[in-house]
């Protein structure tokens, strides 16, 4: 991956080079009209939808928690854990994420409102709204600005110099996936940045840190103390604890996968920091179009991903009701086609594979993975060892040689 602005320099095509300012204006006009058509028809049907999802989620959660009171019995454990996992996924994805985006604020229901909602996650809603709605949705896929790209712990672009530390990133990514809600809490808090800058004593940081700590305390008490304690009647303390841990982990893995699919698969574009100086609304729209990827699948899959399977539509219109994304998707796709843009959409396994492939590829020096074959493996490994153990000079030299070899072999193939 190389930022869209640097592509021509290395012989790749800038996917929006063929669009002029007038095209961008026309695209923006069409998108505004699509947005307006949804707003004009927002009503009872949509309200019924979100209320039904909330009711279903609460019923599943309540039912699962009741079944888990007897989690010592294996069938109860399996059913309860599965139910609770589903409930937690629905709560985070289709309900919490979307309500906190203000998608349902128009209903003026104080119980389903972005300013009053709190969700079943380690990060307090208030902090997440700032980090996610304000930063990620504004600076989508801008290297150095959008922390969702690699969460500040990963190498996400070929332009970032490789360091031996990056070899561990598939592992970091997996650990982050397992404990995703805590990863999000830490990064909403800008924890690493605060430590690096030495601002952990600031009143603002201390206040936010306390909010996260209190939230985590409530969450942990619920899942690992209160509900296990209630299960003691049937001697199921430990099994309920294990069930809740499993459900949280399943939810974490699922939401991490879905979110990785949104901006990380191959074919999604990244952008230069300076490219968004004075960016116009049409330019912002196009960045959202090219910086997001969809997941194709069934209606159930869309609901379980919180309709983030329609990531492109969501990024264009973050505050439209999620049940409408699927409805406008054909229009958006048609717009992409007419303007010769790539609508990045694949089934879940392919998107997940693609995103993970990228994580692995970027954990290695540029070009290493692509140029490694079973035959040259010993040589490649030796080179990797040298780059990992040598200083910056060795790394630069070997990287230059590898890049040169790759260019030559590309030229030969052509």
């Amino acid at each position, binding site marked *: 991956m190389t930022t869209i602005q640097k592509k021509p320099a290395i012989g790749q095509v800038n996917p929006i080079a063929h669009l002029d300012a007038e095209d961008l204006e026309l695209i923006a006009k069409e998108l*505004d009209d699509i947005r*307006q058509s949804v*707003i004009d028809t*927002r*009503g*009872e*049907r*949509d*309200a*019924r939808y979100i209320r039904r999802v909330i*009711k279903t989620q*609460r*019923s599943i959660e*309540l039912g699962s928690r009741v079944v888990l009171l007897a989690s010592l019995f294996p069938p109860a454990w399996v059913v309860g854990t599965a139910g609770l996992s589903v409930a937690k996924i629905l709560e985070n994805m289709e309900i919490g994420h979307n309500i906190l*985006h*203000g998608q349902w*604020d*128009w*209903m*003026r*229901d*104080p*119980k389903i*409102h*972005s*300013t009053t909602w*709190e*969700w*079943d996650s380690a990060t307090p809603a208030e902090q997440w*709204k*700032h980090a996610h*709605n*304000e930063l990620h*949705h*504004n600076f989508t896929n801008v290297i150095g600005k959008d922390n969702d790209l690699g969460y500040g712990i990963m190498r996400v672009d070929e332009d970032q110099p490789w360091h031996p530390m990056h070899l561990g990133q598939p592992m970091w990514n997996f650990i982050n996936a397992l404990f995703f809600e805590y990863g999000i809490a830490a990064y909403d808090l800008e924890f690493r940045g605060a430590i690096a800058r030495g601002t952990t004593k600031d009143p603002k940081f201390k206040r936010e840190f306390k909010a996260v700590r209190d939230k985590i305390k*409530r*969450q942990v*008490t*619920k899942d690992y*103390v*209160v*509900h296990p304690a*209630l299960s003691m009647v049937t001697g199921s303390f430990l099994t309920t604890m294990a069930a809740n841990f499993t459900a949280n982990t399943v939810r974490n893995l699922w939401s991490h996968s879905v979110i990785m699919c949104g901006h990380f698969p191959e074919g999604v574009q990244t952008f230069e920091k300076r490219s968004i100086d004075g960016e116009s*609304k049409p330019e912002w729209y196009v960045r959202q179009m090219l910086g997001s990827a969809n997941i194709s699948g069934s209606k159930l899959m869309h609901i379980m991903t919180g309709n983030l399977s329609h990531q492109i539509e969501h990024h264009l219109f*973050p*505050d439209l009701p999620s049940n409408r994304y699927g409805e406008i998707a054909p229009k958006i796709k048609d717009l992409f086609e007419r303007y010769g843009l790539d609508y990045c959409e694949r089934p879940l396994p392919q998107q997940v594979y693609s995103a993970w492939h990228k994580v692995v590829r970027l954990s290695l020096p540029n070009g290493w993975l692509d140029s490694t074959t079973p035959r040259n493996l010993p040589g490649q490994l030796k080179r990797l060892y040298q780059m990992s153990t040598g200083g910056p000079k060795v790394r630069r030299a070997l990287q230059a040689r590898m890049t040169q070899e790759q260019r030559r072999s590309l030229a030969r193939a052509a």
Partner: protein
Amino acid sequence: MLGCMSTTLAQPRRWRTRALKLAETATTPLVPADFLDLFAPLRAGAELRGRVESVHPETADAATLVIRPGADWRGHVPGQYVRIGVDVDGVRCWRAYSLTHGPRADGRISVTVKAVPDGHVSPYLVRHTRPGTLLHLEQATGEFVLPVPSSVEPVETRKLLFITAGSGITPVIGMLRNLFPSTDSGVLRLPRSAAYDITVLHVAPSEPESIFLDDLRRLEAAGSIRLVARYDDQHGLLDLADLDTLVPDLADRTTFACGPGGLLDAVTTHHEQRDLPLYTEQFRVTALVAGEGGTVTFDRAGVTVDCDGGRPILEQAEDAGVLMPSGCRMGICYQCVLPMREGVVRDLRSGELTIAVPGETGADGVRIQTCINAAAGPCHLDH
């Protein structure tokens, strides 16, 4: 003694609070009520709601809703009104309606709604409400009630005049039904009501458009009231100069008037000149007219900003030095949302107006995004 009493009263409440806190540890981030509402939305301790049990058409454009209120309903006095929150096209709207029954033995309450032409909520309530619908309620309120008869004074004749126009009849019908309950065997004349001598001056655009006309006629036939009906299409618009002719003993009566603002203003002037006792009740406050720009008052900050209609409130408030919550400044992140208690704003992207009318749009006002809304009239923000 007093201290002792307050302890015994406070004790169960404290236990209740503790039990709730404990239950919350199992439901966080939700509260136990969120789950209980799935099964028992009308239970004690729930937010006050009511379930529509039946809908009775009154005229072509008016209907009475019989509602079973939640367990915490504290009852009402005839003449009072209730604020009802109903989701119209998915949007929560609040309106006030007079309770049209006295307290009923079965604990139900009723409101009679007239569909206002071009109205938003009333046509919906009249035509689209089905039995089973859940409504949001607030406790009954209102000062438009009959003075409580004093048990010390000798029972005197209570001479009253009700002047009602259009749906202004609704609180009055609540009082009349309470005084003179109607049964299968006719209108009851109860001892507690014997002292009342009531004239009803009922004004309506036409006879078929009169809500509760049958009730009024039945009461008249039973000798409970004297009815003077005036229809604009038959008698022309009511001229208050005729009041003495229509109600010869006007000077002896205490007047209760309920109807649109114009009529109430006229009655008030008329009665003030003659120094006659008057109670009034008005339904709708003066309509807001959206214009270009307006003053935005931040009630808590105590600052008023003169905003033009072309730029977001957020920017102009910041320019004026108000500390504003803000985020993306393009209408997507909702960090800048503030409650508007009163006023009109225009969405700069779509031109759409958002209007907040105290008493109609929720107790907390309407939440607006200040970064994409411009003032379109004088506004009051809770900030």
